[in-house]
């Protein structure tokens, strides 16, 4: 018998989300229990992210929340990819919280959005990760299969 946490847990998360999200986080769509879209904004006056809204795509497996969701920024006409030393220009995010090691099942869609918000808020470097161009050109892997090297945990 497979473990079927995902459907119930996501249903309840959605229920909670529809009753309200923290400032700067908005649900765009959650039509099924596999893929959700959310928009986030940075709330302080960090000039790198001023007046911009960013779109996040969450993908959940059957074993969420035991396994982490796959989370990437997606680019649209009015939704750029935020500049950050841990965010590749194709939207892939290098954050230990989202990795196999750093994930914990007490995290949620809401808490992941908040972590990303604060990751942007705290950043002052107007740069991409080292090797961004090469990575973006060459990468065919799904984010969850990439072994990130967390080169700078102070960012």
């Amino acid at each position, binding site marked *: *018998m497979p*473990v079927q946490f995902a459907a119930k847990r996501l249903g309840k998360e959605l229920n*909670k989300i529809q009753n309200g999200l923290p400032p700067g986080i908005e649900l765009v769509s959650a039509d099924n229990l596999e893929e959700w879209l959310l928009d986030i904004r940075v709330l302080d006056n960090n000039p790198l992210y001023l007046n911009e809204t960013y779109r996040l795509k969450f993908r959940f497996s059957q074993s969420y929340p035991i396994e982490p969701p796959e989370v990437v920024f997606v680019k649209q006409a009015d939704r750029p990819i935020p500049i950050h030393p841990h965010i590749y220009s194709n939207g892939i995010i290098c954050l230990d919280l989202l990795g196999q090691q750093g994930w914990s*099942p*007490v995290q949620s869609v809401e808490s992941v959005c908040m972590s990303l918000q604060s990751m942007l808020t705290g950043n002052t470097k107007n740069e991409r990760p080292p090797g961004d161009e090469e990575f973006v050109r060459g990468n065919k892997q799904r984010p969850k299969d990439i072994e990130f090297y967390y080169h700078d945990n102070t960012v």
Partner: protein
Amino acid sequence: MSGQSSIALKEEGNRHFQKGDYVAAEALYTKAILSDPTNPLLYTNRAMARLKMSRWDSVIEDCEECLRLSSLSSSSSTPGSKAPGSKNFKALYYLSQAHLPLKNYDQAVSYALEAHKICAETHDKSLAAVTSQVLKCKKERWEHREKLRRREEQELEGEVVEILRGEMEGLLKGSDDEAEKKETEKMYEDKIERIRAAFERAREKENQRRPNPPDWAIDDISFQVMVDPVMTKTGKSYERASIEEHLRRSETDPLTRAPLTIKDLMPNIDLKHACEEFLNENGWAVDW
């Protein structure tokens, strides 16, 4: 040897079951049982196929036969062999699933709890599914009880109104004064109106949107009301099925990331009782 062929029949049945052909699987399990009627495990296989076919009564027969046969074999087996019933949480789990649609709510709950106990002791991977079954049974039992209670209240309302009407009619008959009769009538209509309003208010209150269940009753991993809360070294409690599932993947405390193993988990009995009590009164919380 017949035992050999019953195993082959069972395996063929399993293949059909995997493909979703439950009728063929059931027929093969039946053949297997005919060739070896004393193997308890063949009965749970057939019960599993019959569950899919919604043949609740025959699921119950198979499971009961399985439990009877296993109790025979375990009492005659040598000491040190597997604990009695250790393999048969499936029979109990299927019994719960069959009793539920038959509206035998108390049996459905108690079989689910028995199956849960065995799975928890053996750290079986089906614990999460069995935990969900416990919650489902408790929810349906609560809904059933609520329906009965509401019906009884409605009947009570009707009875009270009838008594008042009877009293009024008695008084009206005993009086010739038209003014007094009008007065009596008005007084009783007013009383009846107030009784109806009081019952209506009670119903409205129940139909109002329910609040979220309290955080202390909710497992932070599955977001469900806890059935069997266990505590980590830091004193935080989780549903046993959820935290064990996490620890099989990563032996870390979900909050502190400190090392944590299944052996470190301690039952939180007081919280378990509190959750049981909460759920008995608030069965809706299973699907909040």
